[in-house]
């Protein structure tokens, strides 16, 4: 295989935009995008809400500065303020660029890009396309990549980085169609593989494949993970499946109602009500449920998201996807009845530690999108900022890698190294005697995380969680892969994904136990207050000698001093 | 007597004359009177719609208005005419501005499209209006021992938003008619598939490929004949049968009937009377 200048792992919004930007920066580079699914399937497509930008179309007095402040406040002051400045200042240009190349943004009466209110935002600045914003952005980017002739390696499962000393020589991946393990020698590698919230399994809104592959590979190669304990629970996931009901439903005027028919958000966020930031609303719903004011059912406890007062026309034109999902997965028509919802693990603020240019600590390795932690979202992400994040930092990472590829020498990945990867795979396939079922382990992992490392955390629960994970990792050694074929072995792939989730889950639980305060989406019942003195810092988790070695990193401050965060 | 305005499809006046001819024989026997609409014009096939949407609307508003003037529903015995006129009707009913524009012109002939007449297929009239029991009662030569492949044809089923009488995935009206006439329907995958008519002149090879698949299945299932409610499908499956099977390297043949002929036969009329001798495949 000819050595690449850049290999991008992941074909979602961040990966595709990185590819486009890299090509633009230096058309002579040999660039490839590697994805375990066809790029248009990536989870970016599920983002329903929109992308924030201070365009000033809807609210003429909106400014980039307000967007910066909202984001920093929303992050519970854990975001790096210089990174947030980059995020918000780049936003208007990026949204308009996407528009210029064909993204079908919804429009306002004056034909400019429409914007709507979103959780935690001081002005309505969320740009959207009905409730399919992520889908249309992803399609547009994929179309442009086809136009530009981007080289794709579709349905390749990334296995590990090839590392020598302190830098990477490229990637080793499995070609799903043939089962062959192939080497991708590359001067630079950009991880853009998405989040890890799926480790919560049934209590997650994520696609089945959001198993944190990029993070796990980087982690195993010794690259630090940052702020892993911060997992965002989206307030409204469908009761049975965990699938997401977009914040847009509340943006369009939906109510959250408990069993007493009360719009209970009045007690938790008097001003913002249903449009408070996600962590606040999730905690509110969870509290209502825990205190007995939720509904009960065989599928678990929940509350109502009521859209009935919005009318059939609005629901059909602005929220058609939600209506479809509600009908398909809950058997409920939101025009007639409220939708049963409860919080669901939705987004991972934590991820691969990068600087503002997408660089990790390892030479030649970069990361962008949900799999990275810059950090722009700190302890809690605002709705509409993720689509923005992946575009802004996807592009930055592509640009950085393109500029820096020249200073690295190309390396080779030896046959021996490839063989070792192959052997490692095969060895896990046929344990003798007693074996474990990967499905059971996966569900148990999700269970223990939902209970012990969920919305409300506490020392003894977290310790139990860590213990459980440790046992699961031990049991994983005996997992059996039944499908021995080379062709499209999804059995093997799912087992490898489980391994990634197990490896990462440790960092989440350990990080949550270590952080003895409550901040953003991390709520400790035993430490209910934000402790700026001791804990205004990022946590790091690095794999050293097979164990999680904790670390820390200061938060870059700026114009905004620490304040109490109320809505 | 149930009276209906009867739409004269272009193909029934030129090539498949046996359709109208056979209906003339037995309509009274089933208590039906079809008043031929000689002022009607071509519906536009499935082409006029995109050559000029407005002319399409005008021409078919007129066809329906002629029936409305008589106070009768408009009955059609060609699938594409059915789908086309019903599509036009839907557009007119849903777009008041278009309806007005069209009616302003129709005034010249003293016509007005009001939307009061239904547009339906002969098959539906037989099954829904006459009723299966009434038909059964009139059968003198039951088609027993005949294994019959029901080929519905696309445009009597799809798009279901325009047609809607049968479930496009599991249509039943033609099957029921066959059974009422004493015949035996065979399980037929291609019952709701295409015959390829509309691309005969533009992509002949593909069309014949499509037709050959349907013919092949019927032949392999040892059907005695194929019956179809559409003269366009009939033209392909009968008229082009030899060419289609030759292209597919299949040596065999199978007769193809119109529903009007099948009804006529069961009601005791002769093949000669019904015009069956006009078919290409004997």
């Amino acid at each position: 295989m000819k050595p690449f200048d850049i290999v991008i792992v992941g074909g979602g919004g961040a990966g595709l935009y990185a590819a486009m930007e890299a090509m633009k920066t230096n058309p002579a580079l040999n660039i490839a995008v590697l994805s375990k699914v066809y790029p248009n399937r990536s989870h970016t497509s599920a983002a329903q809400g929109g992308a924030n930008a201070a365009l000033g179309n809807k609210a003429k007095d909106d400014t980039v500065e307000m967007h910066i402040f909202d984001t920093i406040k929303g992050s519970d002051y854990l975001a790096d303020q210089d990174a947030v400045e980059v995020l918000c200042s780049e936003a208007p240009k990026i949204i308009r660029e996407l528009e210029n190349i064909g993204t079908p943004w919804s429009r306002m009466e004056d034909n400019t890009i429409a914007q709507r209110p979103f959780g935690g935002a001081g002005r309505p600045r969320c740009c959207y396309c009905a409730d399919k914003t992520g889908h249309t952005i992803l399609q547009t980017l994929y179309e442009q990549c086809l136009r530009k002739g981007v080289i794709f390696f579709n349905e390749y499962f990334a296995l590990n980085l090839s590392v020598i000393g302190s830098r990477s020589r490229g990637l080793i991946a499995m070609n799903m169609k043939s089962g062959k393990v192939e080497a991708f020698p590359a001067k630079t590698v950009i991880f853009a593989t998405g989040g890890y919230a799926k480790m919560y399994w049934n209590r997650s809104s994520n696609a089945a494949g959001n198993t944190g592959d990029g993070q796990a590979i980087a982690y195993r190669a010794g690259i630090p993970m940052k702020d892993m304990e911060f997992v965002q629970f989206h307030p409204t996931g469908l009761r049975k499946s965990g699938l997401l009901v977009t914040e847009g439903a509340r943006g369009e005027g939906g109510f959250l109602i408990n069993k007493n028919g009360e719009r209970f958000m009045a007690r938790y966020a008097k001003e913002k009500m249903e449009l408070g930031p996600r962590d606040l609303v999730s905690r509110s719903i969870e509290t209502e449920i825990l205190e007995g004011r939720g509904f009960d059912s065989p599928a678990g406890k929940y509350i109502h998201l009521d859209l009935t007062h919005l009318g059939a026309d609005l629901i059909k034109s602005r929220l058609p996807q939600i209506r479809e999902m509600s009908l398909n997965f809950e058997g409920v028509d939101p025009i007639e009845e409220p939708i049963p919802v409860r919080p669901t693990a939705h987004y991972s603020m934590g991820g691969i530690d990068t600087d503002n240019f997408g660089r990790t600590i390892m030479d030649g390795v970069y990361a962008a999108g949900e799999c990275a932690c810059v950090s722009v979202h700190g302890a809690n992400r605002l709705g509409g900022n993720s689509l923005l994040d992946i575009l802004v930092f996807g592009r930055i990472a592509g640009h950085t890698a393109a500029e820096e590829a020249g200073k690295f020498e190309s390396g080779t990945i030896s046959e021996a190294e490839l063989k070792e990867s192959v052997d490692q795979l095969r060895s896990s396939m046929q344990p003798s005697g007693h074996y474990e079922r990967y499905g059971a382990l996966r569900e148990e992992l999700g269970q223990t995380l939902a209970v012990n490392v969920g919305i409300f955390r506490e020392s003894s629960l977290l310790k139990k969680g860590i213990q459980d994970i440790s046992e699961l990792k031990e049991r994983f050694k005996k997992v059996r892969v039944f499908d021995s074929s080379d062709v499209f072995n999804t059995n093997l792939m799912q087992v490898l994904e489980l391994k990634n989730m197990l490896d990462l889950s440790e960092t989440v639980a350990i990080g949550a136990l270590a952080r003895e305060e409550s901040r953003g989406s991390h709520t400790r019942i035993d430490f209910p207050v934000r402790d700026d003195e001791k804990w205004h810092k990022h946590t790091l988790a690095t794999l050293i000698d097979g164990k999680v070695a904790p670390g820390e990193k200061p938060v870059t401050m700026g114009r905004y001093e620490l304040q109490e965060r109320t809505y | 007597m149930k009276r209906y305005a009867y739409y004269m499809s272009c193909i029934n006046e030129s090539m498949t004359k046996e359709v109208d001819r056979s209906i003339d024989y037995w309509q009274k026997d089933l208590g039906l009177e079809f008043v031929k609409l000689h002022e009607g014009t071509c519906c536009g096939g499935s082409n006029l719609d995109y050559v000029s949407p407005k002319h399409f609307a005008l021409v078919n508003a007129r066809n329906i208005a002629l029936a409305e003037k008589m106070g009768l529903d408009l009955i059609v015995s060609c699938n594409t005419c059915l789908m086309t006129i019903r599509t036009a009707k839907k557009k007119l009913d849903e777009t008041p501005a278009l309806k007005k524009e069209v009616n302003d012109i129709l005034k010249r002939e003293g016509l007005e499209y009001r939307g009061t007449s239904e547009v339906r297929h002969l098959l539906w009239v037989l099954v829904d209006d006459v009723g299966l029991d009434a038909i059964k009662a009139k059968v003198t030569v039951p088609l027993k021992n005949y294994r019959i492949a029901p080929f519905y044809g696309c445009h009597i089923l799809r798009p279901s938003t325009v047609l809607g009488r049968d479930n496009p995935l599991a249509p039943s009206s033609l099957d029921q008619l066959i059974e009422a006439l004493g015949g035996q329907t065979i399980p037929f995958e291609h019952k709701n598939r295409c015959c390829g008519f509309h691309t005969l002149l533009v992509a002949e090879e593909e069309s014949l490929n499509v037709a050959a698949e349907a013919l092949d299945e019927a032949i392999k299932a040892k059907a005695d004949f194929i019956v179809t409610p559409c003269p366009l499908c009939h033209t392909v499956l009968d008229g082009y049968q030899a060419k289609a099977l030759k292209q597919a390297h299949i040596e065999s043949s199978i007769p193809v009937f119109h529903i009007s002929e099948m009804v006529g036969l069961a009601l005791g009329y002769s093949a000669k009377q019904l015009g069956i001798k006009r078919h290409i495949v004997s």
Partner: protein
Amino acid sequence: MTGTIDQHQEGKRDVTFRVFRFNPQVDSKPYFDDYTISAERGITVLRALNYIKEHVDATLSFRAFCQAGICGSCGMRVNGISKLACTSQVWDELDKCREPGIIKVEPLRSLPMIKDLIVDMDPLVDKMTHYSNWIETTMPLAEIGKKEFLISEEEFHKYDKATDCILCASCVSECSILRANKEYISPAVLLKSYRMNVDSRDAIHDVRLSELVKDHGVWDCTHCYRCQESCVKSIPIMEAIHAIREDALESRGPKDTSGAKHAEAFMEDIEKKGKLVEATLPIRTNGMVWTLRNLLPMAMKMIVKRRTPPPPPLVKSAKGIKIFRSMFREMTEHVKQDHQKSHKK
């Protein structure tokens, strides 16, 4: 599908899934495996397949990702019809079984098989590339990102439904012409091409259209409507295909391709006689040489059966054709005025 939440009935019954299997590494030809599981009311086909994979046969391979009807990964045929497995209710499928209690599951048609329910999407991606399914922006490079194009609600509506397409390939699988010839453009690609062509931000409308009217392009659609009927997002795909044809006739003229000539002939005949002159239709569509070569043998047979369409002079006009013609022409004036108005904009 609706029912009040609290009265959730959890009926359960045994359901057999008859699933298509094929592993080219070991199988010489495809076969079916039967899996009988206890399914409760409300579960989807995908959840059933997941269950089978996890608990019964881990070798069963299929694509799945979002499990929410958004990503389009799990397109397959269930009881013969192409759709998404993750939004198909097992209970609803039971009504459609050929053999009671046995749900047939097969891969999508007309795309190369890889394994079990997994087909190769590359041919579709290649076609999207060939037909330029992207916006080539009219914004000069130096200006990109500075401000947005102003797009009216009217224009947005033109392509809004078309952008719902998740490339699940159900329409591709159902298409009658694609089944007959793998080179055919495919409904999904026609839909995307339409979406690009009606976007005012795009610069290559003419180039794209010139490709669409070639062989295996838009004129090869036989209007069977299977694509529209099976679309999991209920997109009126045929409307898009018709719109491309209307556009082709307008931009490239009625004599541009045989498809265009064929369509135009309908208009001409209706204006003149109110009825089609079928005898000359093949000649006007494809020319005398083609007609003699392709249809002469058939014509002979038809002459014997006295089945030939009448020659032009003998085609009887519709009754009342004169007044019909005047109304037809009045509409022609309307259409001309519409064009002038829209070109002024």
